């Protein structure tokens, strides 16, 4: 076991892992069929949303039921900006900043309340968001929703639209994951963890629970906005239905199923959010809700730590048998490769900007 860990720690193994992931990210969109590409892109969209939720819930321990509101807000900002013909980079920045600003405002009030009260406040967001989106019809298109088709592949690339969209998702989503990873593994991550475990201890160490709760919530909202932008890249349409409160609950369930407080778990959560409805549809379209409930219960019973704990479970079983399963060994360098990325992507100014909040 330790031999494998040591093997995974070797620099060239980690670099190979990183290279493998990067090359796969470049090559897979070119090989895969269209349906697979759009499905992976959708997984990416919701993985970023789950990642945001993970920052505030998994790492900082604050229950947020409003994540879908920020996804929807990001999507609406994107749709509006595209409709106005603004530069797409500006639209992207706005789709990140506006949800972050709204999240900050909400968090400034909500984080003053302790415990589950913050959950009660965040419940209000999607519940208020849906009628709001319907009534502000000059911005949102009302209940008919609004389309924004800006993500067609440029002619010079020679790519299909689905390939181009997947590249955008991989790039933006990948950067989001890296930055968030750096955030939660560093000084801020340690502060989040202590705020989650014990606010009094955090206070005694000079870490203001209030400030860090607000920060985590703002980061979550920002990632929600990023997810909303990607939502428009892939789905190209948004309506008040996007903000449906039920989706917020599904996001939360996805986060728990993927693995709370885990970067890879966020990815698995996004996959759960997208793939399980499609999978249950293939089994029996009339029983989707029942099957999804059964899968949810099965995962929670068998893997309380989420899907991300599966390799650990296997490794433990392998150790009990006195050998190591080949699958666990194969997954080790992949997991390790993620940590190797830290060195090539130092924290950016966007993160430092967030400290001021």
């Amino acid at each position: 076991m330790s031999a494998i860990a040591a093997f995974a720690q070797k620099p060239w193994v980690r670099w190979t892992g990183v290279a493998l992931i990067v090359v796969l990210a470049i090559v897979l969109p070119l090989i895969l069929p269209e349906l697979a590409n759009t499905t992976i892109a959708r997984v990416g969209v919701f993985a970023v949303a789950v990642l945001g939720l993970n920052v505030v819930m998994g790492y900082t321990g604050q229950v947020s039921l409003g994540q879908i509101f920020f996804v929807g807000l990001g999507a609406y900002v994107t749709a509006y900006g595209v409709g106005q013909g603004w530069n797409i980079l500006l639209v992207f920045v706005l789709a990140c900043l506006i949800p972050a600003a709204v999240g900050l405002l909400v968090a400034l009030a909500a984080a003053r309340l302790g415990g589950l009260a913050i959950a009660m406040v965040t419940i209000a967001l999607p519940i208020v968001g849906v009628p709001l989106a319907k009534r502000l019809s000059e911005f949102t298109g009302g209940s008919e929703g609004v389309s924004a088709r800006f993500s067609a592949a440029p002619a010079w690339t020679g790519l299909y639209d689905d390939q181009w969209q997947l590249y955008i998702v991989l790039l933006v989503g990948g950067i989001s994951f890296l930055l968030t990873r750096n955030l939660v593994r560093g000084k801020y991550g340690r502060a989040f963890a202590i705020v989650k475990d014990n606010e009094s201890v955090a206070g005694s160490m000079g870490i203001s629970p209030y400030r860090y709760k607000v920060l985590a919530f703002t980061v979550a909202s920002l990632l929600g906005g990023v997810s909303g932008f990607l939502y428009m890249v892939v789905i190209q349409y948004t309506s008040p239905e996007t903000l449906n409160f039920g989706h917020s609950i599904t996001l939360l369930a996805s986060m728990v199923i993927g693995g709370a407080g885990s970067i890879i778990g966020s990815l698995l959560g996004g996959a759960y959010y997208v793939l399980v409805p499609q999978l249950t549809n293939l089994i029996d379209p009339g029983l989707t809700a029942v099957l999804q409930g059964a899968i949810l219960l099965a995962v929670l019973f068998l893997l309380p730590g989420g899907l991300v704990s599966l390799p650990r479970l296997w490794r433990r079983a392998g150790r009990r048998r006195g050998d190591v399963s080949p699958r666990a060994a194969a997954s080790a360098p992949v997991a390790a490769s993620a940590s190797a990325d830290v060195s090539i992507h130092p924290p950016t100014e966007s993160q430092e900007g967030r400290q001021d909040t």
Partner: protein
Amino acid sequence: MSTHRTRLRAMSVVAGIGIVALLVAGCARGGDSGSPSGGTSAPSPGITDTSITLGITTPLSGPTAGPGTCTVAGITAYFGAKNADGGVKFGDGKTRKVEIKALDDAYDPQKAAANYDQLKDSVFAMTAGLGTPTNRAWREAAIADKVPQVLIQTGDPIFSDSTQSPWQLGFVPIYQNEGAAFGKLLAASSGEHKVAILSQNDDYGKGYVEGFKSAIKDASNIKIVKELTYEATDTSVDAQLTELAGTGADVDHAARDLVAAEGPGAQVAAQLVPSVEHVQPEGDPRAGRGVRVPRRLHGVIREGGRKPRVCKGPRCGQVPGRPQAVRELPRHPGVPALLVELHDRRHARAGLREDDPADARRLHEAAAHDLGLHGTSDARWHVGRHDEGRPAGRLDRHRAEVQRQGLRERGDLRMTTASLT
């Protein structure tokens, strides 16, 4: 030194993988990468000389699962019977079996778009999906892919605009048309009417109101005194009804009959429909059981504020008085307002003639069905109950009971049917 060698090794690995990958990529999608627009020679997917496949994405779970499930069940049953008889004869002279592939989108536009992506390469056309956002989500994709999106269940006018939606065809009449039908009916009636509008806060309600207003634009006898909205997910419209009742309006126009078929609005419909149709007289012990209508409203819809008579004796349960406006509606003496509206819509839609007894009966039956009297074959009962006061038989009483409290259970049609049969 060692890091240098590591880097070299890493780069060689990257280069190796990259080369292999590019080679693979060169082969992938090779078949169609040369001529993405050369699809004219290739046959459309989902159709052969003996079969055609249609795709459906519609809510089969969640609050709107009711109509979605019924759609799929109905289509499957119909084409199942047709297939068993040998198939459907098409315009090109060939007889094909119709296969249905239905997927659940839970009224989520994102899932609807995903379902469309999943189905589009294996079906000839997409059809019958319910919902404005769930159909809009992939409307433009369907245009780009040239996949027909036909006979879909939304009254959104964009699907009936052939310049904007060349590959689309709506199924239900657009909401504006339906609203205009109500407006026309009212404008043609004699007397002055004050109208209070209660509409669902979405494109559906707005379309109705828009159509209604355009139809009464030139009618001097109609005045709109108040407009309120409710959310499709609301379970109570008490507040709105009370406020509308305060306006003294004599006609309450609501985009309500379709609401009854759309899950979350069922309770709202239960509140609205009885408020017009089944006002119980004061003092009736059954009054207020099952439906809770603000008492003030009774007065409003009864001839502008006249106090309802107290119900006594064997005829108890029949509505003693009717709003003046409704009574005056042409050609329909004694038929309640909602039935008149439904009749008129059926009439217009199906081209049925009111003066033909067989057609009139059919209209009554349709209206009875819309009122939740699923399985009612003798629709004379409606008129009879309200006007002739003929002794109600056992079944009639049972139906009356179902109607009185059962409209609440409108969401579960099976329940109503079961209790009737």
